[in-house]
């Protein structure tokens, strides 16, 4: 019945156009997946699922490839970035939307949007010249000194490291998370705030009991966008992570990510298996982002269902 309405008279051309656009999008995603799949056949045949769990990357002598260090590096740096960026980003959004007076909130908001638009290379340069020295000396040494018994802070301390990459990524996704979270908070009707305040809630109670649950699905969306940026970030990470096949758990060691190995070695891939191993890494990265987004959509959908009421018959 809804389809019948959809196709009725004037809506028809509009319907076709939008359908076409949707199909094009679907086709693009499918096309990318198929291309990655086909062009990694050699590698997939040679290493099978082992590719995901082995860590040898030896194009020079034995010509064996395993993606584990890169998968680990991508996951670890992205997770670190989110852990750091979520509280700060959402906190900044709360400040901008709820606490700051207009004369402060507007310019600050603009600044954050500007930060979100800064090209990655620039962040990379900043990471190289500011972050890495800071990570090497005061921060890394201090973490290793006080918490060195934890595997994630094991020595020796390097400047270019997963920690540096995670920190840089957190700085990069911060504006995205803050800007979108702020818009989410702005979109919450004032009546919600008034309703809680009128019951004697404090400002803080309004924020965490009313606004955050109300905006939960939107805030999740903001985080997912940030995560997407972190997973795929290439150049800036490549500049600060050290590009090393180290597989230890330590954040203070250099590492490698999926995006950076592709960027670093694609032009040097001198034989087909090498090239296709890199393409397979691209395929894994693609599948990973797709899965994470799917999972996030599911989460958002569940949150929304819980907050926006039972469906009536």
């Amino acid at each position, binding site marked *: 019945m809804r389809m019948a309405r959809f196709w009725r008279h004037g809506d028809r051309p509009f319907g076709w156009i939008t359908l076409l656009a949707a199909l094009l999008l679907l086709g693009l995603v499918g096309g990318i997946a198929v291309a990655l799949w086909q062009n990694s056949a050699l590698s997939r045949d040679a290493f099978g699922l082992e590719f995901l769990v082995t860590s040898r990357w030896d194009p020079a002598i034995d010509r064996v490839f395993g993606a584990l260090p890169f998968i680990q590096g991508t996951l670890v740096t992205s997770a670190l970035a989110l852990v750091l960026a979520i509280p700060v980003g959402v906190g900044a959004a709360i400040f901008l939307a709820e606490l700051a*007076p*207009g004369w402060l909130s507007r310019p600050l908001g603009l600044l954050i949007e500007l930060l979100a638009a800064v090209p990655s290379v620039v962040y990379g340069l900043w990471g190289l010249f500011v972050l890495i020295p800071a990570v090497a000396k005061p921060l890394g040494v201090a973490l290793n000194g006080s918490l060195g018994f934890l595997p994630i802070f094991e020595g020796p301390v390097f400047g270019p490291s997963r920690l540096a990459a995670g920190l840089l990524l957190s700085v990069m996704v911060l504006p995205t998370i803050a800007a979108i979270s702020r818009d989410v908070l702005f979109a919450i*009707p004032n*009546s*919600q*705030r*008034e*309703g*809680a*305040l*009128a*019951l*004697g*809630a*404090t400002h803080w*109670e309004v924020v965490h*009991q*009313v606004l955050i*649950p*109300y905006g939960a699905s939107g805030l999740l969306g903001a985080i997912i966008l940030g995560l997407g940026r972190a997973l795929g970030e290439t150049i800036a990470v490549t500049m600060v992570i050290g590009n090393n096949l180290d597989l230890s758990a330590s954040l203070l060691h250099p590492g490698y990510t999926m995006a950076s190995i592709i960027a670093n070695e694609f032009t040097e891939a001198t034989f087909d298996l090498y090239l296709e191993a890199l393409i397979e890494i691209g395929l894994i990265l693609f599948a990973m982002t797709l899965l994470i987004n799917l999972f996030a959509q599911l989460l958002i959908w569940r949150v929304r269902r*819980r*907050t*926006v*009421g*039972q469906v*009536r018959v």
Partner: protein
Amino acid sequence: MTLATQHDSGQSSLPAAGSAAPPRPPGAGPASAPATRIAIHNLTVHYGTFCAVRNVTLDIPANQVTAIIGPSGCGKSTVVRSLNRMTDLVPGARVSGEAILDGENILRPEVDVVNVRRRIGMVFQRPNPFPKSIYDNVAYGPRLHGVRDRDLDEVVERTLRGAALWDEVKDKLHQSALALSGGQQQRLCIARAMAVEPEVILMDEPASAIDPIGTLRIEELIADLRATYTIVIVTHNMQQASRVSDVTAFFTMDEDRAGYMVEFGPTIEIFTNPRNQLTEDYVSGRFG
């Protein structure tokens, strides 16, 4: 008769400034002169440089329904919102004058607003339930104020019964409040306000977004609540004011658009025998 002698708090006197309240205008207030719950004295509200309400002096009688009527923009909402300090949320709003509740001027900046809002609840024009379950909506206020979880069931049931909503929702307490009809949502919001056991409930056009049957039920509820609460209701609907209220205050605007109170008295008199020509014009529909 001064404000102090009518005060029902049991406290012997108001602060010095409050005791300087003038005698009430002749004929104002119901004949039986019930105790005053909130004594408003010279309330003036500015939004920036704009004076929205000027020198309102008005005794809200305890356990009665006070209606505030008047043309759009005359400051009805402003008066009501200043009583539970919602005006604090508006940047640039300045409130002066007094509103004495139990001997304390609740308009003073130093007053604990959380406490004021707990004692003076508010229901808004559009139902604004939280996107939580019916139960959690009612329990929200009590939880805020430290009612323990094991006592909540009882509080929720008692409140919903009090709001005449229990029978309609008892089987779906844990479903989203947003699935209720608009009228039910508004009564839930009234219940939510009642759950913190305020002394006064302010209602700013509580039925204006509700269908006629829903409106009727809200009016019935207001009549019931009168025994327990002091109610102030802003309404655009003359019939509604005459049906639900005991006393009525009529507001209008000066040339400079500042709102002021024209007349205050028993609802019957305001509607049948107003003293002021402006009131008469308004209640008989000859306004504007």
